[in-house]
């Protein structure tokens, strides 16, 4: 990475990264964001992350990436994940244990139907 020296270069990075954040023309169908702050980890987020990665692999899904983020604040419902598929609003799910993660992958990512009872929030934070 060459060092940034101008506003234009900064803007270019911003525009490219925006695509990934907003799930537009990112070349992927979607992403799953697992909140991995200390509180999330204390609630079992590591197991959830592992379960999601394993499940996606098991089902041969390679157009959905799994990334981590910090704590968005509602620690009470940890572990939390956000499922963001291209062309639709992001959905934040709470209390996602590995067993619930299976439901999210099967019903939402594969089946396209959101898992209503786990929803904490629809739309962007």
């Amino acid at each position, binding site marked *: 990475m060459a060092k940034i020296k101008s506003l234009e270069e900064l803007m270019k990075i911003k525009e490219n990264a925006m695509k*990934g*954040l907003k799930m537009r023309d990112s070349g992927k169908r979607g992403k799953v964001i697992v909140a991995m702050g200390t509180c999330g980890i204390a609630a079992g987020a590591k197991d959830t992350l592992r379960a999601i990665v394993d499940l996606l692999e098991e089902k041969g899904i390679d157009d959905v990436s799994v990334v981590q*983020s910090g704590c968005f*604040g509602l620690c009470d419902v940890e572990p939390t994940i956000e499922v963001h598929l291209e062309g639709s609003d992001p959905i934040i799910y709470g209390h996602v*244990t590995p067993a619930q993660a299976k439901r999210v992958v099967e019903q939402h990512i594969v089946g396209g139907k*959101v898992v209503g*009872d786990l929803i904490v*929030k629809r739309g962007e934070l």
Partner: protein
Amino acid sequence: MPAVENTVLICAGGACISAGEKSVKGVFEETLRKYSLENVVRVVETGCMGACDLGPILVIYPEGVFYQKITPENASRIVEEHILKGRVVEDLLYVGDMGDLRERPQEELPFFTEQVRIATRNLGVIDPLSIDEYIARDGYFALHKVLFEIGTDDVIEILKKSELKGRGGAGFPTWMKWDFTKKAEGETKYVICNADEGDPGAFMDRAVLEGDPHSIVEAMTIAARVIGAQKGFVYVRAEYPLAIERLTHAMKMAREYGFLGENILGTDFSFDLEIRIGAGAFVCGEETALINSIEGKRGIPRVKPPFPANRGLWQKPTLLSNVETYANIPPIITNGGEWFSKFGVEGSRGTKVFALAGNVKNTGLVEVPMGITLRKLIFEIGGGVPGGKKLKAIQTGGPSGGCIPLELIDTPITYDNMKKLGTIIGSGGMIVMDEDSCMVDVAKYFLEFTVEESCGQCTPCRDGTRRMLEILERITSGEGTMEDLHLLKDLGENIMATSLCGLGQTAPQPVISTMRYFWDEYEAHVKEGRCFAKKCKSLTRVVISKEKCVGCTACSRVCPVEAISGSVRTPHEIDPEICTRCGSCLAVCRFGAISKVSP
């Protein structure tokens, strides 16, 4: 983690609540307790599931079985049949397309709608390991602005207009700190970020460092440019390994992109950061103690003045702010000071991050405009006190703060109001306490903390807090006198007036404030040997009711010290001499025969 086998979701949407969700939940939980299942079954209230005409509704996972129109009577049946025996309760089952049901829109929680996220703008939104995602959210644009578009005096002016005050506790105007350090004479200057978040109950700084480390890197670089520093330090607690890891990575990326290091963004401005890890001393949150610690010495506070702005790290002018304060800087510079001061009220502008913990439903972090009332914060955003318990007090400001009683819950949160109530906003920790907390015990807890954390340099703090603790120990063990209470108050006021640093000057605060609002509790401990909350062990006994006990032996089997005697099918008895009041027996008795009494 608890080995939760089932999760039960009970809809707490408006329709379900009006259809009786609260009593269903109560019966459900009561039945779980009856069968000692409360640790293996987790009951969660959810937002509206959308099937309002079928309410109250309840879903059991992992099976995903959906029950409708639950009444208190059949709620206990679901526990007995489904949870205990694994048999689906056919007649309550909902058989339709559940996918459709669940897709209806949700109600927005106040937890989200009431927040204004400035310092926490990126938490949970971006990948903390991706500098590109930080840039996508306007990251490093403020740095660019400061380097190319506006002068350093303009930055001070923006901060002045924003009326931002230090978010670490003292609440000193940020622009003045920057201005003093900028004007201080000297070639070598430093910027320091205080990430030694020591107040128990506050964790916003950890969350920012873990979730948005670049905001600190950017803000410190801006600060360095403005005051003329070449080097900065982030002093992080050793208890926050993940924060250290993420910040280290962020600094590395920032160097690669040219936001840190030599010739930042191609200019002649150079600046770099170094992380210093704390070693577990609360007093190091005090700025001069922190400076000593960075110098590799014992973290004892220095006498002020001189202030760090003139003689700080290695006697050079030093700017020192905490994590949350820095996190506010880039958006303020991008959007202007007026934009920030639009939020909040006179004297307390902008937003503040609060950490909700203790006996509150929505534990977590919230960022709200200042001037919000405690009631709104605890009951609307925080969801209130769980378990049908009554709120007793809210502890703010950690060991330097005090407790606010239920009666004053409509107070708007401002720097001035908190001071009037005998506490501080501090770093923003809010511990909610219900009726099971004894306020004398809470005061004792904080005194134990300060006694252990006193650096030992000045006598009032070192010896005075210890004497206060001894008096509190007497009171909580039933040996206190009324004279003790007055002595305690006197001593506290003296320590506050004569200690060297902020730690000592505020250490008696938890005692003084609980005495102010909960004098009756102190008095009851002394005069009647009674602890309202039945928390103080010496003043509490655990007893078994002869009428209710059926002699099932569950309690005697669980007692860790074998204090319970009695044969099968005859009422049991607890030997108060052996009993440690651990409460294990209370938890297992299915007949409500065991209770705590005081005296």
